[in-house]
């Protein structure tokens, strides 16, 4: 077992975690990044397609600036967001974000004359190198900045538990190095949870291979308050098959240098969604798309699992291929481009909710545990917001570092975790393999906590979770008990986290008795701004959950109605 002492342990190597580490480093504070995958290659940050222009940047008009703010609050968060925070965030992005990235060398795509190529419209965006792939050079730049700064990274290393002192203050992280099977204890004055927006808890999920809601599970076990766990996006346009392509999206967003967006048709070839026409103000129209799809599903003309199509058959191929990568799946399948369309299906996407954050200090409810990026319940779905969080959390920690008491982590909590993990590896059961168990959990969530939820299915999901936890998990069979590169072992560890997170999501879904944006309750189809324009807060209470509600203030934008059928709400 290795023991490392550092100032700040950052769990997560995505946009938020990397930027937090860089900011801390620049303040003379020593960070250490713990990344389950590879910094710059795992997580959701990689998937950033392009970058929204906020404020008055790059010739944005006053109206476009306002649209961006409205988009963030309305279309992206359905008003479940602190609007003052959103404004601060927008201002920071306008002043610092693009500048910092470009100075470090990120290449925002130009044309041959030197103009930055934008997607035109009510909200504009730009791309790093090429649209559809902006996350790749973006995160690669972060990786190289971290390399240059000499910031220590533990890669292909998973955080399995937060280590707390006797007062319940987080003072370290227990980790497993996946490649050599060694345990690593990281002791730190502060820990930042930055594990991101995605969880991979459904059969079809944009979450990448390594995701298993670890950030949520670890924080919850340490006693952190969560919020809005039921609020979750769904992609509508992801390839229906093959299964490995469930993250390949036929982007509905506006394209650089073009006035067009992809369109969607149902099983009968009728067009039912085109962002340019149906949702021009939404830069990422996922929720409105989902609602349009729901109507098709209800009319029997599509299903959430396929039977509808997306493509660019109304575009000139040059419009798509000059500045974007969106044609690549068509070509790889040997299809005609742009004539052929691709069958698509829904995929569970980013979690709007997460760990409850005090946005003034970026603290969770647990002392010593900070939060940045998508795992927090305060922001949603944009790499710029995650980056702002990285900045904010570093500021906050820097202002407080001297005042942080340091008490030792009791040896028994370390021993307990060693025992727990070793026990999992040596599982002598006869039941499912760990990967089969994960699939079982995902199938259950897909079926009972999918796009359209209702009380009966959700309660059934809870008893399934109980059953899995009590009978299936203890009987898990690990074929090869070697220590190194043992993904069976990792999957078993992950499955425990998945169960915890799924339970919280299901209970949270039961609690919110309305529909809002992408959250559909068949038994509560109305959006209820009287009762539910609130954070659905989950507090740990014994072995269970206690719910509270916390209304959101509406200083800049208001929904303008009290009750309405969610499917008719344009956000």
């Amino acid at each position: 077992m290795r023991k490392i002492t550092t100032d700040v342990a950052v769990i997560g190597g995505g946009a938020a975690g990397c930027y937090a580490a860089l900011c801390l480093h620049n303040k003379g504070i020593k960070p250490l990044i713990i990344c389950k995958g590879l910094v710059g290659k795992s997580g959701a940050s990689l998937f950033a397609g392009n970058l929204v222009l906020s404020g008055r940047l790059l010739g944005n008009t006053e109206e476009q600036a306002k649209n961006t703010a409205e988009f963030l609050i309305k279309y992206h968060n359905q008003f479940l967001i602190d609007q003052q925070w959103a404004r601060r965030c927008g201002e920071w992005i306008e002043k610092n974000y693009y500048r910092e990235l470009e100075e470090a060398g990120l290449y925002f795509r130009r044309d041959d004359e030197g103009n930055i190529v934008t997607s035109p419209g009510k909200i504009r965006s730009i791309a790093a190198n090429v649209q559809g792939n902006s996350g790749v050079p973006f995160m690669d730049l972060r990786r190289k900045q971290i390399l240059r700064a000499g910031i220590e990274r533990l890669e292909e290393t998973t955080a399995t538990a937060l280590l707390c002192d006797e007062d319940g203050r987080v003072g370290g992280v227990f980790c497993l190095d996946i490649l050599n099977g060694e345990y690593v204890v990281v002791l730190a004055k502060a820990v930042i949870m930055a594990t991101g927006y995605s969880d991979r808890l459904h059969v079809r999920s944009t979450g990448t291979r390594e995701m298993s809601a670890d950030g949520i599970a670890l924080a919850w076990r340490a006693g952190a308050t969560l919020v809005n766990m039921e609020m979750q996006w769904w992609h509508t346009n992801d390839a229906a098959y093959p299964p490995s392509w469930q993250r390949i999206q036929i982007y509905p967003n506006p394209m650089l240098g073009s006035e067009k967006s992809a369109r969607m048709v149902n099983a009968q070839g009728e067009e039912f969604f085109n962002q340019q026409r149906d949702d021009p103000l939404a830069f990422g129209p996922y929720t409105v798309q989902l609602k349009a799809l729901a109507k098709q599903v209800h009319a029997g003309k599509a299903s959430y699992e396929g039977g509808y199509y997306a493509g660019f058959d109304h575009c000139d191929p040059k419009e798509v291929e000059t500045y974007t990568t969106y044609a690549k799946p068509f070509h790889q399948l040997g299809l005609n481009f742009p004539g052929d369309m691709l069958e698509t299906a829904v995929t569970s996407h980013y979690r709007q909710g997460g760990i409850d954050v005090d946005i003034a200090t970026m603290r969770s409810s647990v002392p010593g545990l900070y939060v940045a990026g998508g795992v927090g319940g305060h922001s949603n779905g944009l790499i710029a917001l995650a980056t702002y969080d990285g900045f904010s959390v570093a500021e906050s920690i820097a202002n407080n570092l001297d005042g942080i008491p340091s008490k030792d982590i009791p040896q028994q909590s370390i021993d307990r975790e060693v025992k727990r993990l070793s026990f999992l590896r040596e599982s002598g059961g006869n039941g499912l393999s760990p990967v089969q168990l994960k699939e079982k959990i995902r199938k259950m969530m897909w079926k009972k906590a999918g796009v359209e939820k209702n009380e009966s299915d959700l309660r059934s999901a809870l008893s399934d979770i109980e059953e899995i936890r009590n009978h299936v998990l203890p009987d898990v069979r690990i074929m090869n008990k070697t220590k190194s590169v043992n993904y069976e072992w990792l999957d078993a560890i992950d499955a425990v986290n998945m169960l915890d997170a799924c339970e919280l999501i299901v209970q949270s879904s039961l609690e919110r008795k309305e529909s809002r944006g992408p959250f559909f309750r068949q038994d509560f189809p109305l959006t209820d701004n009287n009762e539910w324009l609130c954070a659905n807060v989950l507090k740990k209470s014994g072995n269970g959950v206690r719910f509270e509600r916390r209304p959101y203030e509406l200083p800049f934008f208001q929904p303008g109605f009290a009750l309405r059928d969610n499917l008719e709400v344009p956000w």
Partner: protein
Amino acid sequence: MSITPSPYGFARYLGRDENHDTLAARNTRLSRGQVIAVEIKRSEQNGSFQRFHVPYEPRMRVLDALNWISENEAPDLAYRWICGSKMCGTCGVRMNGREVLACWEAVEPEMKIEPLRNLPVLRDLVVDRTPFEKKVASFEPWIERRKNYTEFPEALTHKEMKDAAKALDCIGCMCCYSACPVIRLGAVTDFAGPAPLVQLGQTALDPRNDPAKIKRSLTQTGIFNCVSCYKCEEVCPAHIPIVSQVIEPLKTKTARLLPHLAKHSLALRAVVAARGRVDPTALLLRVQGLRVLAKIPRALRLLVRGKIDPIKTFIRVKTAAYAAAHRILSKGPELE
């Protein structure tokens, strides 16, 4: 890249249609219900191959087959993947002898799957990325600006960034590194390899980068060991023209900034300028100088066979070819 008939002669692609090796054919060769025979190299069986039979599903990728095997038959199979969308570059494997991304490549009716070459194998299909990462790190792959950055957006055109932008498509999958025959020779040369060079190209070909910084990185590339075999380009999933848009531009920079490393290339240019055509003996003499004398036995052999003609080498005749080369190499066209 739309699919239109090739304007080029058919002799070059004779085998492709017969082997059903077009992209369209690869995706339609099999149908649901058929069974794929898969052999995978396993570490714990002394590197022997374990055999599986996987039911085909439409558009199946190699990764889908691996996932099926993991879920149904070999839960202990170790393989990496993260994004499934050709962005993370961690799922590179060799399938039927060819480097591919598991998430991107269609399955074939019979598949032999092995780990990437030229890298230590950690377990089954998982290789150690460290040699590649270390080499990239040694290049200090970031820009150091010549002029201070003032404000966003800075003055920059795509034309200036053309080569660097292509290099930015690199996802670090190491398929090219596995395919490179020079890397396979190991310590025989100090060639950095295509993948690290593409990573270097991202900043070394960036016009905003300080030439002094670029010069430092270029001392470590061993770039003139590239044999221009294009195997890297053949396997690159991002279709980066590695040789022509990364390695050659880096060679150009090296010749300019560190001419002592480019002696052979500069010598060839000089020989062409002096003679119009390349006389291999003249070239060798220019590059290797007196060291050539160490190879007297070979020289004699070549002489006996008439393969070298010292008279021609040492007595230059001014041909029309010479005149043209001399003129053009003294003052060539002015390209933008």
